[in-house]
């Protein structure tokens, strides 16, 4: 059976070039289609300068642009400003109102998936389900490191979705939860900031053994007398979980979109950190049909020493996706 996994990119991946004005959204979409990844994930608060006021004419321009390139929308990344006011948090009603505003815009844009920030409370989302159904948008809570698929906070959303028997609430995994190896790009940056190579190696070794982060942080901060960069590097371990790739298939009914986070790709088109080679076979086996949407987040780790080339990084990731999907299919057919 041919895998129905689709490929796309999040505009987040090109934040460096978009911020600096080196690429336009149009350029990103043209590039995405050129590498066979025509599914476009947008962050309206990044890519629509007049947000939240979007006219029908603007919606039309977006669709015309996508069509011109043979691309289509896949996902809408929402935000929720619970701390909009200095004096108090948003009330529950205001939170629902803000999310409904996003659901409406998502519907006007013809987008079926919405990335829900992980901190949004499950009981707030429960109140939004009738609207998600009305506007036909799947609200996917972003399973982002340091959370992971089986985390109790995530299970609360699954519980709400099951209880309401709704198809419009679930999750949206961010592949950063599958950090099997410590990212070389992180290490390089901390070493340039003054981390001693032997201390950096100690942290990498500890992560490789999956030693619980607090042991390592204490060792580095107290016993080794770590400097600022070393302690900061050790503290990144708090956000560096390696979730079990074998579990992702079990959650497949709850998500239609994946944020394919990555920090760097090697020239050989492999990911030195995240275990895509273990995750993609599980997705293929589960018959998952959503979009792998590139989310490159390496710019902040290398921009101090090199000009960021998000295009090349994203291109390499898609070479890897094609290879891993084909391999997983072939293995299933011979099994």
């Amino acid at each position, binding site marked *: 059976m041919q895998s129905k996994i689709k490929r796309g990119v999040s505009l*987040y991946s090109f*934040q*460096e070039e*978009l*911020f*600096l*004005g080196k690429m336009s959204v149009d350029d990103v979409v043209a590039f995405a289609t050129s590498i066979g990844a025509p599914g476009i994930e947008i*962050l309206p*608060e*990044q*890519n629509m*300068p007049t*947000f939240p006021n979007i006219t029908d004419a603007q919606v039309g321009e977006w669709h015309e642009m996508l069509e011109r390139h043979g691309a289509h929308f896949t996902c809408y990344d929402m*935000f*929720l*400003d*619970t*701390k*909009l*006011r*200095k004096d108090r948090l948003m009330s529950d009603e205001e939170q629902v109102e803000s999310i409904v505003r996003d659901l409406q815009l998502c519907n006007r844009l013809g987008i079926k998936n919405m990335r829900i*920030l*992980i*901190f949004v409370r499950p009981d707030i989302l429960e109140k939004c389900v009738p609207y998600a159904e009305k506007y036909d948008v799947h609200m996917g809570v972003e399973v982002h490191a340091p959370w992971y698929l089986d985390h109790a906070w995530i299970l609360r959303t699954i519980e709400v979705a099951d209880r309401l028997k709704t198809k419009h609430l679930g999750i949206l995994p961010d592949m950063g939860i599958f950090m099997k190896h410590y990212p070389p790009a992180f290490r390089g940056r901390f070493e340039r900031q003054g981390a001693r190579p032997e201390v950096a190696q100690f942290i990498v070794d500890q992560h490789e053994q999956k030693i619980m982060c607090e042991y390592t942080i204490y060792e580095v901060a107290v016993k080794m007398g770590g400097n600022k960069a070393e302690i900061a590097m050790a503290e990144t371990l708090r956000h560096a979980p390696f979730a079990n790739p074998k579990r992702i298939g079990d959650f497949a009914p709850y998500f239609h979109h994946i944020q394919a986070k990555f920090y760097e790709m090697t020239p050989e088109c492999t990911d030195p950190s995240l275990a895509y080679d273990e995750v993609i076979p599980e997705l293929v086996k589960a018959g998952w049909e959503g979009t792998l949407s590139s989310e490159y987040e390496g*710019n*902040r780790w290398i*921009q*101090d020493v090199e000009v960021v080339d998000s295009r090349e990084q994203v291109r390499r990731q898609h070479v890897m996706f094609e290879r891993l999907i084909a391999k997983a299919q072939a293995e299933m057919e011979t099994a």
Partner: protein
Amino acid sequence: MFDKFLIDTASLRNTGPADAPTGFAFEAKLGYYRGLGLSMIEELNVSIDGETLSREAVTFDEGHGPLTLEQMETAYDRRWPFGTAATIAVAHPGGFPAGEHTLAFQQKLRVSYLPFPSFNNDEKAVRLG
């Protein structure tokens, strides 16, 4: 994530009469991967050679008119869009000091999903006149 790109050094200029400047201004971007409502921009700290200028002296203008930081606290209908320069103006009698100086710019943001405030810092050696 964009700290080194916040201050547009070429935009630094004095404000007020040329022979008696009353302050200085520069263009800057928001160091965040999305735009943000002005009420969530808690501080815009400007300092020269390590000395932070007073909060009351700073105004912000993204194109809809200058606001003090106090006015920004309740500017719920205005945003600083992603990747877009806004004018940071500082009342500073005499203007920016002559010769080379370090201009530092710090943004303190209230990002709802973060448990702590978010700080962005840029610092540039600049020379005006």
